[in-house]
């Protein structure tokens, strides 16, 4: 049996990236395959909420315990990806007769935009978590420990020897190039797409794609997470994520065929806005940057063929015991913030198959960039007074910002003025963080994620990226693809100031002149 790797991991979301890191830290030779980019599926399409677990405390104590335990671990190992915002559970008069724990002074200092009609507010140790940074940091560490990571590489087929998976056949979605890779164990960590991956091996997993739509508001209206203290419903969590605020989510069962082409509907937007305004009335007048949706990979318990008892818990399937297919493991269910635990469980299963005895160290070992999570101390390492671009980079790249080459003054120019992204940081992302498209660059640097959604920077960014990729002729195509992606998120919220920006964006890109300088 040819063997290129110890383990092949399918999926570059948080679970796949975390599993790649865990396997690599335990000394395995790892290959990770992702059909698009890191965190381009559900991992990058959620609230970015670092749950306290309080939401599950009553009905699902196991999930609640998992949450609070992982919450503490992530704060210590992923300080650059986590922000300790704290959270509030607020009770509105329509939710209950009495609320608990209201300390007016504290509540309104921490959350000045919160609905003043509230009758109760309880503080919880919520936080926000940046899924893009989290996936990227896990991958960076995996690569540091010898892993091979291939993005834009789609698995088309399993290689089976008898009833054992021994490898995969792949196609590069950008070049069309095909390849074969071999390993004794393959981990299916493809989120909702795990269903389709399993089918390739002739295995059935009962999954239930649940679409969750979210809205992004232009700035932080509070610096704490706001939860609605009521039975879980749509649009009851408001998270301050980096420079924006995110409200979500809805929950709608959708067919598998829709998972790759999700569009946020007008009804979803109206619902989220209405519920958002119940949490914070000022959201009615806050600019909406865009709408997006992700798919939760919900799994039915194995002993329930009806699929009624859907769990949000972690599911590890060894397909040898379950389906008689050896060398194949599926890790699914769970949520973003339990990704590390999921990775640990999956890696344990891999090690059992390989008869490797190695301890999991991911709960204690800080991720790259997170050795020092405070921007204030990271920026002190730059010579001289830190610039806006350096401060921005420190916030995003953590202590790895020190690796960015700011020594050439031309590279210090800001490309994205909304999010303070310099040419130097773009060059760093391209050389160190596996960037192929402008959307990849956005996930690594927040470029184009600000108020103008790329209107002002994307031409410059496309030129810079094309040059860094070694082919300046790519620039127009990179920009066009990126604009289509941004446009998709703008259309559902196309009114008010957002529509003004959309008209402006059209003018800037079609005519390369932001406004008319024609002499009368």
């Amino acid at each position, binding site marked *: 049996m040819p063997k290129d790797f110890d383990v092949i991991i399918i999926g570059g979301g948080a679970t796949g990236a975390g599993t790649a890191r865990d396997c690599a830290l335990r000394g395995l030779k790892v290959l990770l395959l992702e059909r698009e980019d890191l965190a381009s599926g559900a991992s990058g399409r959620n609230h970015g909420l670092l749950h306290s677990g309080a939401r599950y405390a009553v009905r699902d104590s196991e999930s609640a315990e998992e949450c609070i335990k992982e919450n503490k671990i992530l704060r210590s190992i992923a300080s650059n990806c986590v922000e300790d915002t704290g959270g509030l559970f607020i009770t509105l008069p329509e939710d209950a007769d009495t609320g608990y724990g209201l300390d007016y002074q504290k509540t309104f200092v921490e959350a000045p935009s919160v609905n003043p009609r509230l009758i109760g507010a309880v503080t919880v140790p919520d936080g926000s978590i940046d899924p893009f940074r989290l996936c990227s940091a896990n991958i960076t560490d995996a690569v540091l420990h010898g892993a091979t990571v291939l993005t834009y590489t789609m698995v088309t087929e399993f290689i089976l020897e008898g009833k054992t998976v021994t490898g995969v056949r792949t196609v590069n979605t950008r070049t069309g190039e095909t390849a074969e890779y071999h390993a004794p164990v393959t981990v299916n960590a493809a989120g909702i797409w795990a269903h389709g991956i399993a089918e390739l091996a002739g295995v059935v997993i009962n999954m239930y794609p649940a679409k969750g739509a979210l809205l992004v508001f232009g700035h932080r209206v*509070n*610096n704490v997470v706001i939860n609605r203290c009521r039975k879980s419903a749509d649009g009851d969590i408001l998270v301050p994520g980096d420079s924006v605020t995110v409200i979500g989510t809805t929950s709608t069962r959708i067919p598998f065929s829709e998972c790759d082409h999700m569009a946020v509907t007008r009804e979803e937007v109206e619902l989220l806005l209405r519920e958002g305004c119940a949490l914070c009335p000022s959201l009615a007048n806050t*600019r909406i940057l865009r709408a997006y949706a992700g798919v939760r990979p919900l799994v039915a318990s194995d002993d329930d063929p009806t699929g009624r008892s859907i769990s949000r818990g972690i599911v590890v399937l060894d397909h040898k015991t379950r389906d008689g297919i050896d060398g194949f493991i599926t890790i699914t269910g769970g949520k973003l913030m339990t990704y590390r635990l999921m990775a640990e469980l999956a890696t344990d299963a891999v090690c059992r198959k390989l008869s490797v005895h190695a301890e999991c160290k991911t709960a204690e070992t800080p991720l790259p960039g997170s050795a020092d999570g405070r921007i204030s101390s990271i920026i002190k390492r730059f010579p001289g007074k830190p610039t806006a671009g350096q401060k921005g980079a420190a916030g995003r790249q953590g202590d790895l910002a020190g690796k960015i080459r700011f020594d050439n003054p031309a590279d210090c120019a800001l490309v994205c003025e909304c999010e303070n992204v310099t040419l130097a940081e773009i060059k760093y992302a391209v050389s160190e963080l596996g960037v192929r498209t402008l959307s990849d660059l956005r996930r690594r640097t927040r470029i184009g994620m600000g108020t103008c959604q790329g209107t*002002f920077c994307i031409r410059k960014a496309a030129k810079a990226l094309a040059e860094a990729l070694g082919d300046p002729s790519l620039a127009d195509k990179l920009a066009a693809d990126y604009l289509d992606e941004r446009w998709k998120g703008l259309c559902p919220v196309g009114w008010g100031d957002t529509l003004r920006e959309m008209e402006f964006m059209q003018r800037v890109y079609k005519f390369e002149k932001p406004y008319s300088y024609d002499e009368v």
Partner: protein
Amino acid sequence: MQERFISANNFEQCQKCSLCETVCPVMANNPAYAGPKRSGPDGERYRLKNGIFFEDSLKYCLNCKRCEVACPSGVRIADLIQQARIDFARKAPKLRDLMLASTDQVGPMASAFAPVANFALGLPPVKGILDFTLGIDRHRTLPKYSGETFVHWFRKNAASSQAAFKRQISYFHGCYANFNYPQLGRDFTAVMNAFGIGVNLIDERCCGVAKIANGMIPAATRDAKHNINVFRASVAAGRDVITVSTTCTMTLLEEYPELLKVDNADVKGHISLVEPFLYKAIASGELKPVWKEGWKARAAYHCPCHQERLGLGIFTTELLKMIPGLELTELPSNCCGIAGTYGFKKENYKVSQQIGKPLFDSIKAAAPDFVVCECETCKWQIEMSTGVTVKNPVSILAEALDLEKTLELNRS
């Protein structure tokens, strides 16, 4: 570092069109300044996230508010910048800034010793010392202090005769007319009296603009509250408050509620610059001017930045166009570069003069008898930099009106 969460400003209406950058006089002349868009709405998003993103370079903003005039989205860009400076610039003001800002405390001392003060302020060694020790640029001609303040003059010469007029107003003269140029206050009194209007002084304090610019917020807020209370009493007594300084007026009307959070809603409608006040009253026939026979002059109007922001320059030009002997041209809109105390600071002198150059050139090209301008600091800057006299519209009215005949006509 202080954390903030809410910005009352509508900064997300910003579309990033960058028009503000094309009109910013500082950005064109000082590469260290990030410009209004980045310092204002862009920076605000990040400052709301974490105060560490506050940029020192915001201090270069001279608060001319030209960005706000240019903004097609109505974003209060300069207010965002001033507010951020108030919230985050934590360093104590320098002695120099304290001296430049405390116009109503330094003023009385200097006026009392005006001949000595003016002589000394003009001497090269003294200017060198100011330059070296305080950071006030040695090239700068400092405003002269008058020996007799306007208030002193008014009490002695005019106060007793005011009650005879049937209509009464309160006059907010500002620090400049009081300490540096009492003639303006005298002209104001003469014009008002000619129209049959009695002038009353109120217990005013400095409007606070210099204190705001120099980070002395608690002191500015105290003064603002005091002034608003004084205005309330005046309005209650049936006397509207008339001002002559555009910058004072902008501060009283806009900066009090926006930056100092001092509510002025109840008196705002009763505070007016003198030019709109007179224009409206003359246009409606309420006041009737009689112009001097044969009075002639060629003047060029420079609209001060804060007047552009107030949007009231049209009243000045329309009022001046009523004077038969005045040939008035409007200078292209430019900033003179002084911006209150900004241009006095050594670190700003060069940029200040560069900013003003297009205006100075256009004045030299127009070669008027004098420049008309409502702003006192523009006057210092333009006179120092071009040698052309600058007159306040009120002083021009005092010259061009036949005061006695006007009084006769308006008395009946």
